[in-house]
């Protein structure tokens, strides 16, 4: 079932890619322009998606003939898997105000607690690791990481 859905997604992506590519300008001296490769890739998405979806039809039929399809989606696991992504968005939005070091420490602390790390250990590792990362990148490699609240304090 996953493959059928993914196949359909790829087919839609292919149509969108071709539609967007058709709006690119053509070159006066040549019949091939900037739209050629994106259009070919869009075609590839569509055809590949079609093959992927169609190849799963026999499996789906087999499932349909059985009493019921066993759906086993672990929603809790998916939500926890998405937590790092949510925390990256948190970093993007909060780092300008909180600063890199505090944002990273918060992220690490939350992630460690989710996996049941003892609080004191999680806090200690988060603070030390975030400070090390911050100082390596900002002081040694001279990356302009946001200082945030630390600049106010210092």
């Amino acid at each position, binding site marked *: 079932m996953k493959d059928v859905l993914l196949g359909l997604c790829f087919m839609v992506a292919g149509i969108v890619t071709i539609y967007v590519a058709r709006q690119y300008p053509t*070159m006066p001296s040549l019949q*091939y322009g900037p739209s050629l490769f994106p259009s070919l890739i869009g075609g590839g998405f569509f055809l590949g998606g079609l093959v992927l979806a169609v190849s799963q039809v026999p499996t789906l039929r087999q499932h349909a003939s059985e009493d019921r399809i066993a759906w086993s989606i672990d929603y809790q696991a998916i939500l926890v898997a998405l937590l790092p992504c949510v925390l990256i*968005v948190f970093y993007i939005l909060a780092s300008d105000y909180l600063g890199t070091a505090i944002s990273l420490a918060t992220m690490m602390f939350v992630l460690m607690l989710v996996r049941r790390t003892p609080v004191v250990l999680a806090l200690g590792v988060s603070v030390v690791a975030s400070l090390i990362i911050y100082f390596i990148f900002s002081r040694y490699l001279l990356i*302009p990481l946001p200082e945030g609240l630390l600049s106010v304090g210092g």
Partner: protein
Amino acid sequence: MDALLQGLQLVFNGQTLLVILAAAAFGIFVGAVPGLTATMAVALLVPITFYMDPTPAIAAIVTTSAMAIFAGDIPGTYLNIPGTPASAAYVGESSLLAKKGRARETLGTNLVCSVFGGLFGTVILVFVSPSLAEVALKFSSYEYFWLALLGLSSSIFISIGSKTKAFLSLMIGLLLSTVGLDMMSGAPRFTFGIPDLMAGINFIPVMIGMFALNEIMSFYGSRNEVRNPPSLSKDKVFGQVPVHVKKYWRNMLRGSSLGTLIGALPGAGADIAAWIAYAVGKSRSKDRAAYGTGHIEGIVDASSANNSGISGAWVPALVFGIPGDSITAIVIGVLYMKGMNPGPTIFMEGSGLVYSLFVVFFVANLIMLPIGYLAIKSSKVFILTPRKILMPIILCFCIVGAFSINNSITDVWIMLLVGIVAYILARCDFPMAPAILGLVLGTTLENSFMSSMLKSNGDLLSFFSRPISASLGALVILVWLSPLLVRLYQRYKAPHTNHTPRSS
């Protein structure tokens, strides 16, 4: 001779040697912790190498990848969990040997085979690359078009699993490569009005998202953190190695040759090299029945092959700019950043840089022996490092690393989006290597096609007008037809085998 001395000087100085040592420790650590791959180690390393001189930067990558591939055997032996995918082929054999109390002997043999394989691949790299570069000097946009297409095609046909999924994975990489200003017309493509995308998508955030964030998400999506501490064996690391080397030297040679060859094929990395070498080793063995019961011969071929594959992958990467695996795909980007544009001219410039690269390969593989020995002795530290502490730290490195390439938050967004897509695709068994090759080779493919068309006024037959170009074109068509030919061959063979008289 001057260039060689210059190359030696570039490697044998305090800074580079220190970088090699640090990278060795980092590679061993990442390789030995299950779930962290060699490609992930290299992707995380790139933001730091960005600020180094070319030689230490390349030295760090070469050393890390070689060490990580060997270190993947440590948890494979003790926990039956391969540290990197390259150890997966023979993890059954090595863990069964460990259960017999021969873990250190197994790891010692792995180490020697890895060193031998790495050095074998390096020798091939040193001798084959310059001669191949002389041929490559005659290449024009027509040949580069076919070469890029050959690389992309092999990445699909060599991949393990569904070819349709490999093809779609490749298309994603190719689509990402089209983002930015078109080289010919200057028209912006898929930039959505974001100025940071005008120069195209930087491959480093993509790599970090694809290989590091994807793994982090997989870790949080799974529930298996608890590991039982293994009972570590006390047998001698190198005690039985001379006996094994004497008995299985042919396997080492065969595994290393196969590994170098497979590594040099675009899309096939150390993991595929190890699987094929294991299968070939088993089919040629006199003790075939002993395979799968904890047989040392089973690890010799594959363990030599995965490390030689790492060196082999550098041959097309250096000579043509076509990566042999995901790691060299990253390396090509680093080489460009360091002004060492991969291609045949890199061998003709007469600078010490290429020699320094060769020397780095030898040094990295040789120091694997003492550092690997220490790692085997202190195995417990690596295999019991809790991932619940490591993964959050790695996530922070991912964010800061992606940001540091252009000091742009757009790169962090790219890493995030690519990571989510890679996670979904990886859960559905899509291979990642074709996507990386698509991203790296997409620009070469399109630019060489467009410039060939400009030169020939849009005549498609011009791709077959030059002898080398026509041969490469024929090779590509042969690769495309290979599934059909294999099926025809099997159909032809089937009736013949049915009629063969039975002996019993």
